[in-house]
């Protein structure tokens, strides 16, 4: 269908954007890459009075290392992060997830901030942000605050962003040495939203797991962290048996919804399989990185 009639503003600064949001509150929708919002408009699932197009807002796009964080501007496009060596080096889990988002033409327009503000629980980036304890920076006319990913996702397509706030930046912690990551998912067709997805990251120190992070997409109305499995993994040496047990624990903690793509029980089985695969891939990736680091040092 054609889009509904709507007013349109294209502010040039964050302050102007925040001013428009302060005035229009939830009558306004923020338009970034448009790869989710424009379909919602076309299907009349969203009927904002005003679109605030932030694509031209100065300083909202780009990536920079700040202390132990990689700060990604909200309107940085997914392809830009996908092609970035800095992302591959600093946040390997993000690098692993990006190629799985939609299709090339979607990633050419879609933005990192847009995906996280839209907060589709079946999407890849919310699971990545949750697994890594990313911080989301929002700004209103009166205040700037950082929200941790665990607090950000509040329900289906619902976040901690207040109606007068604009998401300006997402901060991902830089992976420590010895880290390996994998993003695995099961989808009917490549590029579709996954039935279940898994963000997995392991950090190895002297062949012992010093940090483990697991978060699912597609199993609840928000992305879901598998804390019991993470706790089990920490302090252990990677092994097939350990990963089997982690998979059992992670799947047991889930109560996924059933829909036409799969029953709840099927999703749990897929989740367990993804944990086994994801942990194996992350551990292999971590060992490979450790080896490359050692060779570089020689």
């Amino acid at each position, binding site marked *: 269908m054609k889009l509904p009639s*709507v007013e349109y503003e294209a502010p040039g600064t964050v302050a102007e954007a925040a001013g428009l949001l302060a005035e229009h509150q939830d009558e306004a929708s923020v338009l970034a890459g448009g*790869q989710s919002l*424009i379909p919602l408009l076309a299907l009349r699932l969203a009927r904002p009075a005003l679109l605030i*197009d932030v694509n031209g807002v100065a300083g909202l796009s780009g990536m920079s290392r700040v202390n132990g964080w990689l700060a990604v501007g909200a309107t940085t496009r997914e392809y830009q992060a996908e092609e970035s060596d800095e992302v591959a080096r600093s946040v390997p889990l993000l690098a692993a997830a990006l190629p799985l988002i939609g299709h090339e*033409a979607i990633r050419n*327009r879609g933005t990192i901030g847009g995906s996280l503000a839209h907060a589709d629980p079946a999407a890849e980036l919310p699971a990545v942000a949750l697994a890594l304890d990313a911080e989301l920076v929002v700004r209103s006319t009166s205040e700037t605050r950082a929200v941790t990913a665990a607090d950000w996702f509040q329900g289906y397509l619902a976040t901690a962003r207040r109606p007068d706030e604009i998401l300006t930046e997402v901060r991902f912690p830089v992976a420590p040495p010895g880290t390996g990551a994998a993003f695995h998912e099961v989808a009917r067709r490549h590029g579709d939203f996954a039935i279940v997805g898994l963000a997995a990251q392991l950090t190895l120190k002297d062949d012992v797991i010093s940090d483990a992070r697991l978060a699912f997409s597609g199993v609840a109305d928000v992305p879901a962290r598998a804390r019991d499995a993470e706790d089990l993994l920490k302090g252990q040496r990677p092994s097939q048996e350990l990963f089997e047990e982690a998979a059992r624990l992670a799947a047991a903690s889930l109560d996924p919804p059933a829909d036409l793509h799969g029953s709840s029980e099927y999703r749990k089985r897929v989740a367990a399989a993804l944990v086994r695969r994801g942990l194996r891939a992350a551990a292999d990736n971590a060992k490979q990185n450790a080896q490359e680091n050692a060779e570089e040092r020689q």
Partner: protein
Amino acid sequence: MTMADVTVTVNGETRTRSVEARRTLADFLRDDLDLTGTHVGCEHGVCGACTVIVDGRAVRSCLMLAVQAAGREVTTVEGLAPDGALGPLQQAMADSHSFQCGFCTPGFVMQATAFLGAHPDAGEREIREALSGNICRCTGYQSIIDGVLLAARRGRQA
């Protein structure tokens, strides 16, 4: 209703029209500029038929507003054969009998044009991946992949 003057370079020509904010780039091309080579299928970003190239990158023109294309350079399927002769990718696809009904054709051709431009050495796997966001209901895709592979091979020999 917000109306805005939008100036876009389309296939090398500067075009200005007054449009509503809700006008998609796809409808702008088809209805305001009469460039009906860009096809509109699902109108919500699923089918890929409306794919065009904006500043060198493939995008879905149904998921971009015309006002967002202001100042940008857009290439549509008409821009691939300005003098009426088929471009090399189009010729390879014709030689491979890539298409049947033709509805999805401009989207595939634009997506493949952008992809081969950036990855002239791509093999079958990469080409399948690059075209995975475009839907064809006739062919079963094999003939389309064959056409793009033929174009890539001819491009490397030239």
